[in-house]
Protein backbone atom coordinates (compact mmCIF):
# COMPACT_ATOMS: atom_id res chain seq x y z
CA UNK A 1 0.00 0.00 0.00
CA UNK A 2 1.15 3.51 -0.63
CA UNK A 3 2.23 5.67 2.23
CA UNK A 4 -0.70 8.11 2.66
CA UNK A 5 -2.69 5.17 3.96
CA UNK A 6 -0.03 4.26 6.50
CA UNK A 7 0.28 7.82 7.77
CA UNK A 8 -3.50 8.10 7.97
CA UNK A 9 -3.65 4.86 9.94
CA UNK A 10 -1.00 6.11 12.33
CA UNK A 11 -2.80 9.40 12.83
CA UNK A 12 -6.08 7.60 13.46
CA UNK A 13 -4.53 5.25 15.98
CA UNK A 14 -2.93 8.24 17.70
CA UNK A 15 -6.31 9.94 17.95
CA UNK A 16 -7.77 6.70 19.26
CA UNK A 17 -5.24 6.54 22.08
CA UNK A 18 -5.90 10.16 23.06
CA UNK A 19 -9.65 9.65 23.01
CA UNK A 20 -9.43 6.50 25.11
CA UNK A 21 -7.12 8.18 27.60
CA UNK A 22 -9.47 11.15 28.02
CA UNK A 23 -12.47 8.83 28.20
CA UNK A 24 -10.86 6.73 30.93
CA UNK A 25 -9.97 9.85 32.93
CA UNK A 26 -13.51 11.18 32.60
CA UNK A 27 -15.12 7.89 33.56
CA UNK A 28 -12.71 7.42 36.44
CA UNK A 29 -13.35 10.87 37.85
CA UNK A 30 -17.10 10.25 37.92
CA UNK A 31 -16.72 9.05 41.48
CA UNK A 32 -15.70 12.55 42.44
CA UNK A 33 -19.03 13.86 41.16
CA UNK A 34 -21.04 11.75 43.53
CA UNK A 35 -22.55 13.74 46.36
CA UNK A 36 -21.35 12.59 49.81
CA UNK A 37 -18.79 9.96 50.78
CA UNK A 38 -17.24 8.33 47.70
CA UNK A 39 -16.85 5.08 49.60
CA UNK A 40 -20.58 5.00 50.22
CA UNK A 41 -21.14 5.82 46.56
CA UNK A 42 -18.93 2.98 45.42
CA UNK A 43 -20.91 0.65 47.64
CA UNK A 44 -23.91 1.43 45.46
CA UNK A 45 -27.48 1.78 46.58
CA UNK A 46 -26.79 -0.49 49.57
CA UNK A 47 -26.17 0.79 53.08
CA UNK A 48 -22.73 -0.59 53.86
CA UNK A 49 -21.43 -1.40 57.32
CA UNK A 50 -18.15 0.20 58.51
CA UNK A 51 -16.08 -2.85 57.58
CA UNK A 52 -17.31 -2.73 54.01
CA UNK A 53 -16.59 0.98 53.85
CA UNK A 54 -13.08 0.33 55.09
CA UNK A 55 -12.64 -2.40 52.48
CA UNK A 56 -13.82 -0.01 49.80
CA UNK A 57 -11.42 2.68 50.99
CA UNK A 58 -8.62 0.17 50.73
CA UNK A 59 -9.58 -1.25 47.36
CA UNK A 60 -10.12 2.13 45.74
CA UNK A 61 -7.16 3.70 47.58
CA UNK A 62 -9.49 6.53 48.51
CA UNK A 63 -6.90 8.04 50.83
CA UNK A 64 -4.35 8.41 48.01
CA UNK A 65 -4.18 11.48 45.72
CA UNK A 66 -6.55 11.17 42.76
CA UNK A 67 -3.86 10.76 40.08
CA UNK A 68 -2.34 7.85 41.98
CA UNK A 69 -5.75 6.29 42.23
CA UNK A 70 -6.24 6.73 38.49
CA UNK A 71 -2.92 5.10 37.70
CA UNK A 72 -3.71 2.25 40.03
CA UNK A 73 -7.13 1.77 38.47
CA UNK A 74 -5.89 1.86 34.90
CA UNK A 75 -2.96 -0.39 35.80
CA UNK A 76 -5.37 -2.93 37.25
CA UNK A 77 -7.45 -2.78 34.08
CA UNK A 78 -4.40 -3.66 32.00
CA UNK A 79 -3.69 -6.65 34.20
CA UNK A 80 -7.28 -7.81 33.84
CA UNK A 81 -8.41 -6.86 37.33
CA UNK A 82 -11.62 -4.94 36.79
CA UNK A 83 -12.34 -4.31 40.46
CA UNK A 84 -15.09 -5.38 42.79
CA UNK A 85 -18.79 -4.69 42.71
CA UNK A 86 -20.12 -4.21 46.22
CA UNK A 87 -23.67 -4.50 44.99
CA UNK A 88 -23.14 -7.93 43.45
CA UNK A 89 -20.46 -8.79 46.01
CA UNK A 90 -18.33 -10.19 43.24
CA UNK A 91 -15.40 -9.40 41.04
CA UNK A 92 -16.54 -7.31 38.04
CA UNK A 93 -14.56 -9.62 35.75
CA UNK A 94 -16.65 -12.54 36.96
CA UNK A 95 -19.89 -10.66 36.45
CA UNK A 96 -19.07 -9.43 32.96
CA UNK A 97 -17.25 -12.54 31.72
CA UNK A 98 -20.20 -14.84 31.05
CA UNK A 99 -22.29 -11.99 29.61
CA UNK A 100 -19.90 -10.42 27.16
CA UNK A 101 -20.10 -13.24 24.62
CA UNK A 102 -23.86 -12.87 24.33
CA UNK A 103 -23.60 -9.14 23.76
CA UNK A 104 -20.86 -9.48 21.17
CA UNK A 105 -22.89 -12.10 19.35
CA UNK A 106 -25.92 -9.81 19.41
CA UNK A 107 -23.87 -6.92 18.03
CA UNK A 108 -22.34 -9.11 15.32
CA UNK A 109 -25.75 -10.50 14.37
CA UNK A 110 -27.23 -6.98 14.12
CA UNK A 111 -24.23 -5.74 12.18
CA UNK A 112 -24.76 -8.56 9.70
CA UNK A 113 -28.42 -7.63 9.32
CA UNK A 114 -27.55 -3.98 8.82
CA UNK A 115 -24.94 -4.76 6.20
CA UNK A 116 -26.89 -7.40 4.29
CA UNK A 117 -30.44 -6.08 4.54
CA UNK A 118 -29.63 -2.37 4.78
CA UNK A 119 -27.25 -2.34 1.85
CA UNK A 120 -29.45 -4.82 -0.04
CA UNK A 121 -32.59 -2.75 0.38
CA UNK A 122 -30.70 0.43 -0.53
CA UNK A 123 -29.29 -1.10 -3.70
CA UNK A 124 -32.69 -2.55 -4.60
CA UNK A 125 -34.28 0.87 -4.13
CA UNK A 126 -31.63 2.57 -6.22
CA UNK A 127 -31.64 0.06 -9.07
CA UNK A 128 -35.23 -1.12 -8.86
CA UNK A 129 -38.24 0.36 -10.55
CA UNK A 130 -40.37 3.17 -9.14
CA UNK A 131 -42.81 0.93 -7.30
CA UNK A 132 -40.06 -0.97 -5.50
CA UNK A 133 -38.27 2.28 -4.71
CA UNK A 134 -41.35 4.02 -3.35
CA UNK A 135 -42.38 1.05 -1.23
CA UNK A 136 -38.93 0.75 0.29
CA UNK A 137 -38.74 4.50 0.93
CA UNK A 138 -41.97 4.44 2.94
CA UNK A 139 -40.74 1.42 4.88
CA UNK A 140 -37.41 3.04 5.78
CA UNK A 141 -39.05 6.37 6.71
CA UNK A 142 -41.22 4.62 9.29
CA UNK A 143 -38.42 2.34 10.46
CA UNK A 144 -36.24 5.34 11.24
CA UNK A 145 -38.92 6.68 13.58
CA UNK A 146 -39.37 3.43 15.46
CA UNK A 147 -37.33 3.09 18.66
CA UNK A 148 -35.78 -0.27 19.50
CA UNK A 149 -38.14 -0.95 22.40
CA UNK A 150 -41.19 -0.30 20.24
CA UNK A 151 -39.94 -2.65 17.55
CA UNK A 152 -39.19 -5.16 20.30
CA UNK A 153 -42.79 -5.08 21.58
CA UNK A 154 -44.07 -5.43 18.05
CA UNK A 155 -41.79 -8.37 17.24
CA UNK A 156 -42.61 -10.10 20.53
CA UNK A 157 -46.36 -9.80 20.03
CA UNK A 158 -46.29 -10.86 16.38
CA UNK A 159 -43.49 -13.39 15.96
CA UNK A 160 -43.05 -14.73 19.48
CA UNK A 161 -46.60 -14.70 20.85
CA UNK A 162 -48.76 -14.55 17.72
CA UNK A 163 -46.95 -16.90 15.40
CA UNK A 164 -44.85 -18.65 18.01
CA UNK A 165 -41.83 -18.77 15.71
CA UNK A 166 -39.36 -17.37 18.22
CA UNK A 167 -38.90 -17.45 22.01
CA UNK A 168 -40.03 -14.41 23.99
CA UNK A 169 -37.12 -14.19 26.40
CA UNK A 170 -33.62 -15.37 27.07
CA UNK A 171 -30.41 -15.91 25.20
CA UNK A 172 -30.26 -19.69 24.61
CA UNK A 173 -27.63 -22.29 25.39
CA UNK A 174 -25.47 -23.61 22.56
CA UNK A 175 -24.49 -21.49 19.57
CA UNK A 176 -27.37 -22.44 17.28
CA UNK A 177 -29.90 -21.96 20.06
CA UNK A 178 -28.31 -18.60 20.89
CA UNK A 179 -28.67 -17.44 17.29
CA UNK A 180 -32.28 -18.53 17.37
CA UNK A 181 -32.93 -16.65 20.62
CA UNK A 182 -31.08 -13.57 19.46
CA UNK A 183 -32.87 -13.26 16.12
CA UNK A 184 -35.70 -11.01 17.28
CA UNK A 185 -33.42 -8.87 19.50
CA UNK A 186 -31.00 -8.43 16.62
CA UNK A 187 -33.80 -7.37 14.29
CA UNK A 188 -35.19 -4.94 16.88
CA UNK A 189 -31.77 -3.47 17.51
CA UNK A 190 -30.83 -3.07 13.85
CA UNK A 191 -34.21 -1.81 12.65
CA UNK A 192 -33.70 1.95 12.67
CA UNK A 193 -30.04 1.57 11.70
CA UNK A 194 -30.80 -0.68 8.77
CA UNK A 195 -33.26 1.93 7.50
CA UNK A 196 -30.65 4.65 7.81
CA UNK A 197 -28.02 2.60 6.01
CA UNK A 198 -30.58 1.70 3.33
CA UNK A 199 -31.30 5.40 2.71
CA UNK A 200 -27.64 6.34 2.49
CA UNK A 201 -26.95 3.36 0.23
CA UNK A 202 -29.82 4.30 -2.03
CA UNK A 203 -28.79 7.90 -2.49
CA UNK A 204 -25.14 6.99 -2.82
CA UNK A 205 -25.75 4.28 -5.45
CA UNK A 206 -28.14 6.59 -7.26
CA UNK A 207 -25.57 9.35 -7.27
CA UNK A 208 -23.00 7.02 -8.84
CA UNK A 209 -25.51 5.64 -11.36
CA UNK A 210 -25.86 9.12 -12.82
CA UNK A 211 -22.22 10.06 -12.43
CA UNK A 212 -20.11 11.12 -15.38
CA UNK A 213 -17.62 8.29 -15.13
CA UNK A 214 -20.44 5.76 -15.41
CA UNK A 215 -21.47 7.53 -18.62
CA UNK A 216 -17.96 6.92 -19.86
CA UNK A 217 -18.29 3.23 -19.04
CA UNK A 218 -21.62 3.08 -20.87
CA UNK A 219 -20.17 4.96 -23.83
CA UNK A 220 -17.63 2.15 -24.20
CA UNK A 221 -20.32 -0.46 -24.58
CA UNK A 222 -20.24 -1.89 -21.05
CA UNK A 223 -23.47 -3.58 -20.01
CA UNK A 224 -25.14 -2.76 -16.68
CA UNK A 225 -23.99 -6.08 -15.23
CA UNK A 226 -20.43 -4.98 -16.01
CA UNK A 227 -20.44 -1.35 -14.92
CA UNK A 228 -22.74 -1.68 -11.89
CA UNK A 229 -20.32 -3.77 -9.81
CA UNK A 230 -17.17 -2.03 -11.00
CA UNK A 231 -18.17 1.58 -11.23
CA UNK A 232 -21.43 2.06 -9.35
CA UNK A 233 -21.25 -0.23 -6.31
CA UNK A 234 -17.48 -0.08 -6.00
CA UNK A 235 -17.53 3.72 -5.96
CA UNK A 236 -20.52 3.95 -3.62
CA UNK A 237 -18.98 1.42 -1.25
CA UNK A 238 -16.74 3.90 0.57
CA UNK A 239 -19.59 6.13 1.65
CA UNK A 240 -21.85 3.18 2.44
CA UNK A 241 -19.14 1.51 4.44
CA UNK A 242 -18.39 4.62 6.46
CA UNK A 243 -22.04 5.12 7.40
CA UNK A 244 -22.59 1.43 8.07
CA UNK A 245 -19.44 1.43 10.17
CA UNK A 246 -20.65 4.31 12.29
CA UNK A 247 -23.98 2.59 12.89
CA UNK A 248 -22.26 -0.68 13.75
CA UNK A 249 -20.09 1.19 16.25
CA UNK A 250 -23.27 2.60 17.78
CA UNK A 251 -24.71 -0.90 18.19
CA UNK A 252 -22.74 -1.51 21.38
CA UNK A 253 -24.75 1.20 23.11
CA UNK A 254 -27.95 -0.07 21.53
CA UNK A 255 -27.59 -3.44 23.30
CA UNK A 256 -28.72 -1.61 26.43
CA UNK A 257 -32.31 -1.33 25.23
CA UNK A 258 -32.53 -4.51 23.17
CA UNK A 259 -31.20 -6.76 25.93
CA UNK A 260 -33.47 -5.19 28.50
CA UNK A 261 -36.53 -5.53 26.23
CA UNK A 262 -35.88 -9.22 25.55
CA UNK A 263 -34.56 -10.11 28.98
CA UNK A 264 -31.13 -11.09 27.71
CA UNK A 265 -28.25 -11.36 30.18
CA UNK A 266 -25.65 -9.33 28.35
CA UNK A 267 -23.53 -6.39 29.37
CA UNK A 268 -26.15 -3.94 28.07
CA UNK A 269 -28.81 -5.14 30.48
CA UNK A 270 -26.14 -5.42 33.17
CA UNK A 271 -25.33 -1.73 32.66
CA UNK A 272 -28.99 -0.80 33.14
CA UNK A 273 -29.32 -2.89 36.26
CA UNK A 274 -26.05 -1.61 37.68
CA UNK A 275 -27.08 1.98 37.00
CA UNK A 276 -30.43 1.44 38.68
CA UNK A 277 -28.61 0.12 41.74
CA UNK A 278 -25.92 2.78 41.48
CA UNK A 279 -23.18 0.18 41.27
CA UNK A 280 -20.46 2.58 40.12
CA UNK A 281 -17.53 0.14 39.72
CA UNK A 282 -19.54 -1.97 37.26
CA UNK A 283 -20.98 1.06 35.44
CA UNK A 284 -17.49 2.50 35.00
CA UNK A 285 -16.11 -0.67 33.45
CA UNK A 286 -19.05 -1.24 31.11
CA UNK A 287 -19.30 2.35 29.94
CA UNK A 288 -15.56 2.46 29.31
CA UNK A 289 -15.86 -0.80 27.37
CA UNK A 290 -18.66 0.64 25.25
CA UNK A 291 -16.75 3.82 24.48
CA UNK A 292 -13.71 1.67 23.71
CA UNK A 293 -15.71 -0.50 21.29
CA UNK A 294 -17.24 2.55 19.61
CA UNK A 295 -13.90 4.27 19.10
CA UNK A 296 -12.05 1.15 17.96
CA UNK A 297 -14.73 0.23 15.41
CA UNK A 298 -14.77 3.81 14.13
CA UNK A 299 -11.01 3.86 13.76
CA UNK A 300 -11.01 0.56 11.89
CA UNK A 301 -13.78 1.89 9.63
CA UNK A 302 -11.82 5.07 8.88
CA UNK A 303 -8.72 3.12 7.95
CA UNK A 304 -10.53 0.49 5.86
CA UNK A 305 -12.40 3.30 4.17
CA UNK A 306 -9.19 4.96 3.12
CA UNK A 307 -8.12 1.66 1.62
CA UNK A 308 -11.41 1.33 -0.29
CA UNK A 309 -11.29 4.86 -1.63
CA UNK A 310 -7.72 6.02 -2.23
CA UNK A 311 -8.89 9.63 -2.44
CA UNK A 312 -9.82 9.64 1.25
CA UNK A 313 -6.28 8.96 2.39
CA UNK A 314 -4.90 12.05 0.70
CA UNK A 315 -7.95 14.21 1.27
CA UNK A 316 -7.83 13.52 4.99
CA UNK A 317 -10.88 13.34 7.17
CA UNK A 318 -14.25 12.85 5.59
CA UNK A 319 -16.58 12.97 8.57
Amino acid at each position, binding site marked *: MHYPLVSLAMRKVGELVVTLFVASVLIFSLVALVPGDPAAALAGGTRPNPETLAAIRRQFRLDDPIWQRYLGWIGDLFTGNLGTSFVYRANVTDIIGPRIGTSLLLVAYSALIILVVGVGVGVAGALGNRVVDRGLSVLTAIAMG*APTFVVAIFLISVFALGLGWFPVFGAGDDFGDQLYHLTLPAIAMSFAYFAFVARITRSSVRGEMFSEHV*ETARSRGLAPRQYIPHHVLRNASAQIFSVAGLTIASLFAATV*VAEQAFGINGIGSLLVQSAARQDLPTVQIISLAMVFAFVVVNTVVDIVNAAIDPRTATRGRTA
Partner: protein
Amino acid sequence: MSVAQLAAGRSTPSVLRRASSVGWLTVASTVWMLVLVIVAVIGPLVAPYDPTALDLMNVYAGPSSAHLLGTDETGRDILSRLLVGTAPTLAGPALVVLIAGAVGVLLALSMAWLGGRFDAFLSRVLDIMFAFPGIIVAIVAVSIFGAGFIAPVIALSIAYIPIIARILRTSAIRQRNLPYIAALTVQGASPARMWLTHLLPNLLPIITVQLVVSFSYAILDISAISYLGLGLQPPATDWGLMVASGQPAVIAGHPGQSISAAVVIVITVVALNLIGDRLGEHFDVEQR
Protein backbone atom coordinates in the same frame (compact mmCIF):
# COMPACT_ATOMS: atom_id res chain seq x y z
CA MET B 1 -25.35 21.43 -17.32
CA SER B 2 -24.43 17.91 -18.34
CA VAL B 3 -26.92 15.18 -19.01
CA ALA B 4 -25.78 13.45 -15.87
CA GLN B 5 -26.55 16.52 -13.79
CA LEU B 6 -29.90 16.94 -15.47
CA ALA B 7 -30.80 13.36 -14.76
CA ALA B 8 -29.48 13.37 -11.22
CA GLY B 9 -31.24 16.62 -10.40
CA ARG B 10 -34.48 15.11 -11.54
CA SER B 11 -34.25 11.94 -9.52
CA THR B 12 -35.97 13.16 -6.37
CA PRO B 13 -34.18 11.48 -3.49
CA SER B 14 -36.93 10.33 -1.22
CA VAL B 15 -40.56 9.49 -1.21
CA LEU B 16 -40.91 11.74 1.82
CA ARG B 17 -39.87 14.71 -0.24
CA ARG B 18 -42.08 13.77 -3.13
CA ALA B 19 -45.09 13.46 -0.87
CA SER B 20 -44.19 16.54 1.10
CA SER B 21 -43.94 18.62 -2.06
CA VAL B 22 -47.67 17.95 -2.23
CA GLY B 23 -47.69 19.29 1.30
CA TRP B 24 -50.32 17.29 3.09
CA LEU B 25 -47.86 15.12 5.02
CA THR B 26 -45.99 18.15 6.28
CA VAL B 27 -49.24 19.85 7.19
CA ALA B 28 -50.47 16.76 9.01
CA SER B 29 -47.15 16.46 10.85
CA THR B 30 -47.25 20.10 11.91
CA VAL B 31 -50.85 19.81 13.07
CA TRP B 32 -49.91 16.70 15.08
CA MET B 33 -47.06 18.54 16.79
CA LEU B 34 -49.26 21.55 17.55
CA VAL B 35 -51.92 19.28 19.02
CA LEU B 36 -49.26 17.61 21.17
CA VAL B 37 -48.06 20.96 22.49
CA ILE B 38 -51.64 21.92 23.38
CA VAL B 39 -52.23 18.53 25.01
CA ALA B 40 -48.98 18.93 26.94
CA VAL B 41 -50.39 22.11 28.47
CA ILE B 42 -54.04 21.18 29.01
CA GLY B 43 -53.68 17.37 29.10
CA PRO B 44 -54.42 16.98 32.82
CA LEU B 45 -57.55 19.15 32.40
CA VAL B 46 -59.07 17.24 29.49
CA ALA B 47 -58.12 13.74 30.64
CA PRO B 48 -61.39 11.88 31.15
CA TYR B 49 -60.07 10.02 34.25
CA ASP B 50 -57.52 10.45 36.98
CA PRO B 51 -54.50 8.74 35.35
CA THR B 52 -53.55 7.09 38.64
CA ALA B 53 -57.06 6.00 39.68
CA LEU B 54 -57.13 2.22 40.03
CA ASP B 55 -60.23 0.29 39.01
CA LEU B 56 -59.49 -3.31 39.84
CA MET B 57 -62.93 -4.46 38.70
CA ASN B 58 -62.14 -3.21 35.24
CA VAL B 59 -58.61 -4.29 34.27
CA TYR B 60 -57.53 -4.86 30.64
CA ALA B 61 -60.79 -3.44 29.35
CA GLY B 62 -60.86 -3.15 25.58
CA PRO B 63 -61.67 0.11 23.83
CA SER B 64 -65.17 1.29 24.66
CA SER B 65 -67.13 4.53 24.93
CA ALA B 66 -66.17 4.70 28.60
CA HIS B 67 -62.47 4.03 27.94
CA LEU B 68 -61.61 5.01 24.37
CA LEU B 69 -58.28 3.18 24.45
CA GLY B 70 -59.20 0.69 27.18
CA THR B 71 -57.57 0.23 30.58
CA ASP B 72 -54.30 -1.19 31.85
CA GLU B 73 -53.47 -3.99 34.29
CA THR B 74 -54.79 -2.00 37.25
CA GLY B 75 -57.79 -0.56 35.46
CA ARG B 76 -56.28 2.88 34.82
CA ASP B 77 -57.58 4.70 31.75
CA ILE B 78 -54.95 4.45 28.98
CA LEU B 79 -56.08 7.59 27.12
CA SER B 80 -55.85 9.67 30.28
CA ARG B 81 -52.38 8.34 30.97
CA LEU B 82 -51.30 9.17 27.40
CA LEU B 83 -52.68 12.72 27.71
CA VAL B 84 -51.08 13.38 31.07
CA GLY B 85 -47.84 11.72 29.95
CA THR B 86 -47.50 14.04 26.96
CA ALA B 87 -45.95 16.92 28.88
CA PRO B 88 -43.10 14.96 30.52
CA THR B 89 -42.50 13.05 27.26
CA LEU B 90 -41.91 16.29 25.37
CA ALA B 91 -40.47 18.46 28.15
CA GLY B 92 -37.30 16.37 28.65
CA PRO B 93 -36.31 16.28 24.98
CA ALA B 94 -37.25 19.98 24.62
CA LEU B 95 -34.88 20.89 27.45
CA VAL B 96 -32.15 18.75 25.91
CA VAL B 97 -32.52 20.52 22.59
CA LEU B 98 -32.61 23.98 24.17
CA ILE B 99 -29.52 23.42 26.30
CA ALA B 100 -27.51 21.53 23.69
CA GLY B 101 -28.69 23.95 21.00
CA ALA B 102 -27.65 27.07 22.92
CA VAL B 103 -24.22 25.68 23.82
CA GLY B 104 -23.76 24.10 20.40
CA VAL B 105 -24.55 27.31 18.51
CA LEU B 106 -22.27 29.36 20.74
CA LEU B 107 -19.43 26.85 20.33
CA ALA B 108 -19.90 26.55 16.57
CA LEU B 109 -19.96 30.31 16.04
CA SER B 110 -16.96 31.04 18.23
CA MET B 111 -14.98 28.19 16.66
CA ALA B 112 -15.78 29.45 13.18
CA TRP B 113 -15.05 33.04 14.18
CA LEU B 114 -11.82 32.58 16.10
CA GLY B 115 -10.48 29.61 14.10
CA GLY B 116 -6.86 28.62 14.61
CA ARG B 117 -5.78 26.70 17.68
CA PHE B 118 -8.97 27.48 19.55
CA ASP B 119 -10.97 25.81 16.79
CA ALA B 120 -8.54 22.90 16.47
CA PHE B 121 -8.56 22.23 20.20
CA LEU B 122 -12.33 22.40 20.55
CA SER B 123 -12.75 20.22 17.47
CA ARG B 124 -10.72 17.53 19.19
CA VAL B 125 -12.78 17.96 22.36
CA LEU B 126 -15.99 17.57 20.37
CA ASP B 127 -14.55 14.48 18.63
CA ILE B 128 -13.86 12.92 22.00
CA MET B 129 -17.31 13.84 23.32
CA PHE B 130 -18.76 12.28 20.19
CA ALA B 131 -17.35 8.92 21.31
CA PHE B 132 -19.82 8.87 24.21
CA PRO B 133 -23.20 7.67 22.94
CA GLY B 134 -26.07 9.71 24.44
CA ILE B 135 -27.80 6.80 26.08
CA ILE B 136 -24.59 5.64 27.79
CA VAL B 137 -23.92 9.12 29.19
CA ALA B 138 -27.49 9.21 30.47
CA ILE B 139 -27.16 5.81 32.14
CA VAL B 140 -23.86 6.80 33.74
CA ALA B 141 -25.49 9.98 35.05
CA VAL B 142 -28.29 7.93 36.55
CA SER B 143 -25.79 5.69 38.31
CA ILE B 144 -24.34 8.78 39.98
CA PHE B 145 -27.35 10.94 40.67
CA GLY B 146 -30.06 8.31 40.75
CA ALA B 147 -32.94 7.64 38.39
CA GLY B 148 -35.30 10.49 37.64
CA PHE B 149 -36.20 13.20 35.17
CA ILE B 150 -33.23 15.54 35.66
CA ALA B 151 -30.07 13.44 35.41
CA PRO B 152 -30.78 11.93 31.95
CA VAL B 153 -31.84 15.34 30.59
CA ILE B 154 -28.60 17.01 31.69
CA ALA B 155 -26.56 14.05 30.45
CA LEU B 156 -28.20 14.01 27.03
CA SER B 157 -27.82 17.79 26.76
CA ILE B 158 -24.08 17.32 27.09
CA ALA B 159 -24.02 14.34 24.73
CA TYR B 160 -25.92 16.28 22.04
CA ILE B 161 -23.57 19.27 22.04
CA PRO B 162 -20.96 17.74 19.71
CA ILE B 163 -23.63 16.51 17.29
CA ILE B 164 -25.14 19.97 16.94
CA ALA B 165 -21.89 21.93 17.16
CA ARG B 166 -20.00 19.91 14.54
CA ILE B 167 -22.62 20.39 11.83
CA LEU B 168 -23.18 24.06 12.62
CA ARG B 169 -19.45 24.76 12.74
CA THR B 170 -19.09 23.67 9.12
CA SER B 171 -21.92 25.98 8.04
CA ALA B 172 -20.65 28.83 10.19
CA ILE B 173 -17.18 28.56 8.65
CA ARG B 174 -18.73 28.66 5.20
CA GLN B 175 -20.69 31.79 6.15
CA ARG B 176 -17.69 33.38 7.75
CA ASN B 177 -15.67 32.98 4.57
CA LEU B 178 -18.28 34.65 2.38
CA PRO B 179 -17.15 37.98 0.93
CA TYR B 180 -19.82 39.99 2.71
CA ILE B 181 -18.22 39.33 6.10
CA ALA B 182 -14.90 40.60 4.81
CA ALA B 183 -16.70 43.65 3.40
CA LEU B 184 -18.33 44.33 6.77
CA THR B 185 -15.01 43.92 8.55
CA VAL B 186 -13.42 46.46 6.23
CA GLN B 187 -16.28 48.83 6.97
CA GLY B 188 -15.42 48.48 10.65
CA ALA B 189 -18.53 46.65 11.77
CA SER B 190 -18.21 45.29 15.30
CA PRO B 191 -18.08 41.49 15.68
CA ALA B 192 -21.15 41.58 17.92
CA ARG B 193 -23.15 43.36 15.25
CA MET B 194 -21.98 40.98 12.56
CA TRP B 195 -22.94 37.99 14.70
CA LEU B 196 -26.38 39.23 15.57
CA THR B 197 -27.43 40.89 12.34
CA HIS B 198 -25.69 38.71 9.76
CA LEU B 199 -24.09 35.46 10.84
CA LEU B 200 -26.83 34.22 13.14
CA PRO B 201 -29.77 35.11 10.87
CA ASN B 202 -28.05 33.45 7.92
CA LEU B 203 -27.45 30.32 9.97
CA LEU B 204 -30.95 30.27 11.39
CA PRO B 205 -32.36 27.90 8.76
CA ILE B 206 -29.76 25.20 9.36
CA ILE B 207 -29.99 25.73 13.12
CA THR B 208 -33.75 25.22 12.95
CA VAL B 209 -33.43 22.03 10.93
CA GLN B 210 -30.77 20.74 13.32
CA LEU B 211 -32.91 21.45 16.37
CA VAL B 212 -35.99 19.77 14.87
CA VAL B 213 -34.03 16.66 13.96
CA SER B 214 -32.26 16.61 17.34
CA PHE B 215 -35.62 16.94 19.05
CA SER B 216 -36.83 13.75 17.38
CA TYR B 217 -33.63 11.93 18.39
CA ALA B 218 -33.97 13.25 21.94
CA ILE B 219 -37.52 11.90 22.12
CA LEU B 220 -36.18 8.49 21.10
CA ASP B 221 -33.41 8.63 23.69
CA ILE B 222 -35.45 9.99 26.61
CA SER B 223 -38.26 7.52 25.89
CA ALA B 224 -35.69 4.73 25.89
CA ILE B 225 -34.35 5.92 29.26
CA SER B 226 -37.90 5.98 30.65
CA TYR B 227 -38.55 2.58 29.14
CA LEU B 228 -35.47 1.24 30.92
CA GLY B 229 -36.90 2.55 34.20
CA LEU B 230 -34.07 5.04 34.68
CA GLY B 231 -36.02 8.19 33.89
CA LEU B 232 -39.27 9.47 35.27
CA GLN B 233 -40.46 7.28 38.17
CA PRO B 234 -44.02 6.03 38.81
CA PRO B 235 -46.62 7.15 39.71
CA ALA B 236 -45.70 9.90 37.24
CA THR B 237 -45.76 8.62 33.68
CA ASP B 238 -44.59 9.29 30.17
CA TRP B 239 -44.93 7.29 26.97
CA GLY B 240 -41.68 5.33 27.34
CA LEU B 241 -42.68 4.27 30.82
CA MET B 242 -46.12 3.25 29.52
CA VAL B 243 -44.57 0.97 26.90
CA ALA B 244 -42.45 -0.64 29.61
CA SER B 245 -45.16 -1.05 32.21
CA GLY B 246 -47.46 -2.51 29.54
CA GLN B 247 -44.89 -5.05 28.40
CA PRO B 248 -45.83 -7.85 30.86
CA ALA B 249 -49.41 -7.37 29.71
CA VAL B 250 -48.33 -7.82 26.09
CA ILE B 251 -47.08 -11.27 26.98
CA ALA B 252 -50.35 -11.93 28.77
CA GLY B 253 -52.18 -11.01 25.56
CA HIS B 254 -53.24 -7.44 26.41
CA PRO B 255 -51.01 -5.22 24.29
CA GLY B 256 -53.33 -2.16 24.50
CA GLN B 257 -51.21 0.08 26.71
CA SER B 258 -47.83 -0.67 25.13
CA ILE B 259 -49.18 -0.40 21.61
CA SER B 260 -51.01 2.91 22.26
CA ALA B 261 -47.90 4.52 23.72
CA ALA B 262 -45.65 3.01 21.06
CA VAL B 263 -47.84 4.32 18.26
CA VAL B 264 -47.85 7.90 19.54
CA ILE B 265 -44.06 7.80 19.94
CA VAL B 266 -43.56 6.57 16.38
CA ILE B 267 -46.02 9.08 14.91
CA THR B 268 -44.33 11.92 16.78
CA VAL B 269 -40.82 10.96 15.71
CA VAL B 270 -41.83 10.38 12.09
CA ALA B 271 -43.74 13.70 12.10
CA LEU B 272 -40.67 15.55 13.36
CA ASN B 273 -38.45 13.86 10.77
CA LEU B 274 -40.88 14.88 8.04
CA ILE B 275 -40.95 18.47 9.24
CA GLY B 276 -37.15 18.49 9.43
CA ASP B 277 -36.88 17.06 5.88
CA ARG B 278 -39.31 19.61 4.52
CA LEU B 279 -37.64 22.53 6.28
CA GLY B 280 -34.24 21.41 5.04
CA GLU B 281 -35.54 21.18 1.49
CA HIS B 282 -37.25 24.54 1.76
CA PHE B 283 -34.18 26.37 3.03
CA ASP B 284 -32.01 24.57 0.53
CA VAL B 285 -34.17 25.84 -2.31
CA GLU B 286 -34.22 29.31 -0.82
CA GLN B 287 -30.46 29.52 -0.69
CA ARG B 288 -30.02 28.77 -4.39
